[in-house]
């Protein structure tokens, strides 16, 4: 039996330290949020599995590097087929592949990016819904808003958590693949050729982080039950895609280049990514005949409508989330 006296018998001891005057509380919310979310095995598994995109990109870079050497030989014929299958470009008649390295790499990243978007959808579905909903359910908001935490700081910390996981799926694998590709294909020369790609990857990845993070935070602030948030997120992502598929099926191409072509958020993001990567202009500026890359370009779309849709949803979501958090902060003592 422990016979030691209770520590409180020694009385309360004052603390002589200093509280930071800097507004870094969002960092504490971010770190704690990442730690808690990362404890879920499924989330950890999903993040690790997202590195398959890096592996896929590396494999394609390796194939392209081999093709640069083996162009025109019999050994290359199988690889041409594989490249055609993934990137929708027929390189069988192209001799100096190294001259088109940049545009091919852009195509590789865009191809991977479109796959990563699905993975982002799944990761957000696991990591995002509980961010604010769990605090609402546990009535934990008083511990934030009885401290020098503003609604904006709280939102920023929570958004950073989901941004971290989206970034782990859509940014880190691509940047790793870019480094790998650069190191294995010609070194400095390739680095110079593909440097702009790093910026494009950061812009597209950052866009997805901002958009996805804002939407899931807004949804999470609307309910204290994360299952409803999850259902809302799935409906938000999948219903427009299904509606777009139906529209593309029943309407002629020319009528879907405007608003009707911007129903699917997935398509809006990919059209925007195409624009950021400048893939259409990049292929069209090559001396290659159009039939080589025509299938890679896909359906022509204007950027305006997708950009407006994405911006509207992002700003709207941030506003909804901010208003909700302000409301919570004002009723925290009564929570």
């Amino acid at each position: 039996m422990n016979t030691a006296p209770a520590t409180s018998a020694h009385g309360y001891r004052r603390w002589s330290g200093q509280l930071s005057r800097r507004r870094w509380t969002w960092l504490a919310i971010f770190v704690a949020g990442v730690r808690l979310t990362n404890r879920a095995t499924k989330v950890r598994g999903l993040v690790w599995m997202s590195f398959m995109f890096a592996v896929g990109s590396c494999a394609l870079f390796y194939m392209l590097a081999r093709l640069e050497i083996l162009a025109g030989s019999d050994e290359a014929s199988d690889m041409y087929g594989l490249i055609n299958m993934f990137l929708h470009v027929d390189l069988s008649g192209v001799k100096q592949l190294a001259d088109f390295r940049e545009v091919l790499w852009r195509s590789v990243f865009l191809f991977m990016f479109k796959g990563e978007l699905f993975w982002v959808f799944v990761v957000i579905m696991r990591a995002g819904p509980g961010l604010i909903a769990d605090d609402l359910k546990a009535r934990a908001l008083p511990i934030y808003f009885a401290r020098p935490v503003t609604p904006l700081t709280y939102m920023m910390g929570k958004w950073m958590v989901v941004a971290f996981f989206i970034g782990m799926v859509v940014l880190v694998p691509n940047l790793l693949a870019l480094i790998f590709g650069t190191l294995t294909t010609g070194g400095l020369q390739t680095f110079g050729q593909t440097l702009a790609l790093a910026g494009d990857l950061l812009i597209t990845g950052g866009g997805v982080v901002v958009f996805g993070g804002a939407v899931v935070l807004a949804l999470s602030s609307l309910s204290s039950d994360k299952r409803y948030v999850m259902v809302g997120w799935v409906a938000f992502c999948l219903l427009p895609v299904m509606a777009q598929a139906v529209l593309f099926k029943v309407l002629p191409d020319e009528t879907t280049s405007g608003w009707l072509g911007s129903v699917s958020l997935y398509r809006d993001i990919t059209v925007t990514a195409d624009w950021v990567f400048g893939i259409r202009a990049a292929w069209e500026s090559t001396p290659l005949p159009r039939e080589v890359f025509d299938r890679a370009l896909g359906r022509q779309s204007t950027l305006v409508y997708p950009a407006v849709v994405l911006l509207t949803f992002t700003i709207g979501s941030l506003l909804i989330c901010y208003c909700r958090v302000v409301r919570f902060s004002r009723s925290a003592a009564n929570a």
Partner: protein
Amino acid sequence: MAEMFTCNGLVKRYGKVCALNSLTLSVDGTVVGLLGPNGAGKSTLISVLLGQTPATSGKAAVLGLDAARRQNLIRRRVGFVPENDCLIPGMTGTGYVCYTGRLAGMSYKDAMQRAHEVLDYVELGEARYRPAEQYSAGMKQRLKLAQALVHDPDLLFLDEPTNGMDPQGRQTMLSLITDLGRAGIRVLLSSHLLPDVDRVCEQVVIMGGGEVLSSGNIDEMKRAHPTLYTVEFVAEGDGEDFRQRLQENNVTIHQRAEGSLGIELPTAEAQCIVLQAARETNIKLRGLHPKQNSLEEAFMAAIARQQNP
């Protein structure tokens, strides 16, 4: 040292509902009780004092700092124990307290070290690495106290800190509150449990309908009726003569029992009436005690005055 908090014409409306109705008061003291029925405006007052809810009009200050403009400074100096659990699922006791310290602006190292100290202080040292959601109701209350203490505040707002606790846990919590008062931390204790307030507080504020119904020193409140006395006597008969003689001298009899009466004198200085009546009716007096009001009676009287002004 600045007052614990002051309110000057403080009004808070939620649409048509007036939660705080022109509240003007100045509260000082070490451990102060905040009493009132549900909907009295206690939580709204705490919310305004913490700067969470802007007041509709009027001013409030905590520790001399304007609640509307200096809320960040106030929150650095105030610890808040909410009524609800407010625990973050998945966190251990140490992790939770350390996290709340980080939110208050402590470095990780300081927050972790201090978390261990305050968890020891609230006697959760042995459970510190257990997930907080596995704690008992009493442990959760003490964990909430620990998170409010982690940044060493000058003032604590405690909202129903003994809710759901067993008698032993309640005693521990009340001892901790008393000890905190001795350590120089000022405490505002909002509670429905009058015995708790009676035990640890020296001052009390009674609220109702968004107004202050009564405030002041608890001992003075208990002495609110100087004309009420209890008479103990020994009579050969049933003491009927004695009662009649008292009533003839304008003494109201509230309570009758064998050998004792609860009486109300016509004036505070009229104790001689009782002595004279006893002498005249040949009664042996064993005692004449001024009746001590309980806090509950003071509270009920304040509420009754509000309902029947």
